[in-house]
């Protein structure tokens, strides 16, 4: 699975963007942030916990995206 950002909770603070080890997070045209599911690895192999979840100041903003299967580390 990948993580996704709940748009109505995102404040556009950009705390997550520089923390993502995969450059999966970018700013959308509305100033809020989005995660590219193709690049998200849930930080497996990098950190103990997903960095977007760890750094986001608003609870339940970075959540698991049920639409994408779990990333398999090579």
């Amino acid at each position, binding site marked *: 699975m990948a993580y996704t950002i709940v748009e109505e909770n995102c*404040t*556009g*603070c*950009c*705390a997550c963007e520089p923390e993502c080890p995969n450059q999966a997070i970018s700013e959308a045209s509305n100033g809020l942030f989005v995660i590219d599911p193709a690049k998200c690895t849930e930080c497996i192999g990098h950190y103990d916990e997903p960095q977007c979840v760890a*750094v986001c*100041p608003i609870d339940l903003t970075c959540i698991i995206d049920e639409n994408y299967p779990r990333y398999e580390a090579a």
Partner: protein
Amino acid sequence: MQTVQNHTGAESAGVNAAANVDEIMQKVAEHKGCGTSGGSGKASCGSGAGENDLPPEIWEKVKNHPCYSEEAHHHYARMHVAVAPACNIQCNYCNRKYDCANESRPGVVSEKLTPEQAAKKVLAVASTIPQMTVLGIAGPGDPLANPEKTFKTFELIAKTAPDIKLCVSTNGLALPDHVDRLSQYNIDHVTITINMIDPEVGAKIYPWIYYNKKRYTGVDAAKILTERQLQGLEMLTERGILSKINSVMIPGINDQHLVEVNKAVKSRGAFLHNIMPLISAPEHGTVFGLTGQRGPTAQELKALQDSCEGEMNMMRHCRQCRADAVGLLGEDRSAEFTTDKIMEMEVNYDLDARKAYQAAVESERQAVVAAKQEELQTLAGAHSDIKMLIAVATKGGGKVNEHFGHASEFQIYELSTSGAKFVGHRRVDLYCQGGYGEEDALGTVIRAINDCHAVFVAKIGGCPKNDLKTAGIDPVDQYAGQFIEQSAIAYFKEYIDKVAAGEIEHVAKGDAEIRQGALIAA
């Protein structure tokens, strides 16, 4: 480096002064506890500090800084640019999710800017408001959690507007990592928000921090935070960078503890302590707002500030402004400078014109001081234990020059035989909007200044005059257009003479409410 060379003479003096850092910090450390000894006729220090109260090196750094000097804030303006929205800690009194253009509190902002947009905005504002002397980056979020955006902004502004002083406000978690860079950019003022030095207290204020790629919670989080904050403060002191400490007074959580915080930060060289009341209106959606955590009353806040005053300078004029506030404190003009409007503005940054304007401000400022000194002579030898508060309606320049009905805040002065000492301000709803009185609004005004014996105004209508009298507050319009402190001392002299002659009886006033609502933008 380029940015350093571009700075003004005053800031170069700051650089030279930094070479003698031990000497300066020694002077800061020795400077304490003035203002409470009555009868000397000496103005209080802290937020009301004047040239005679501070070492010259320190005075030179703060004299035109509205956020550091209560006296300067009547004359000089500041602006904040919101370029750094990310944050690395969560505070129970903060919620950046909600924003309203009419709302004035730390953390709210209507739009965030890129460093390039911020530099353009600074030039646009500085060419419109010549008394704008200070640029701060104060969030929303923590500027040092976004170091690249913060430092890029400082770099651009130092190049384009070299006379503007730069400062930064931080929660301190990332501070030790950036002190050297702050020093490089010639930032000689840093504000650190420190609400506790006891992690048990901290756990009630901070649900989590993000540090070294990990989220920490509870006491562990607070322990790391306090260690980093105090380490950062010590590092700033070692480098001769002035540090102001902000603390949020949260009744029942850290109100008593802030006395300990005050001692801890003073011993590490902090220059000024600003204890602010908690803002916790439920509609702001903060944790404290939702759990019903109350803020302090005016009397509680003043008592805590007074109890810390013997230890170090206290600041009392903070407006807890927006993270994108522009203009004089208490008079937010941010709505005039939105990105759309700035892009259309023709910018003519005329350094000489700004200097000329500021020289005029300086001479007006000297006149205020001279008038106060002259009036103080009349109190020489007067003996009275009476201390009383008065509220003043002013729109700047250190004068009684605002109509009662147009005041969106009142400045509060404590009068005694030592003179008139600024002790704070109170926000109110406008009593008169569109030319007619609003009964409910008058009630909120009276509750906000209920601890005052008098209110000084430029003008006041018959109805509110009578209602104020009924509430035991003397409406005084005889000093319209005159200097505040001079007028206040004259009023006090007359008052104690009347009390001595038995014409009036001095009675103590009650407590007052700190209004938490929005400050209506100009």
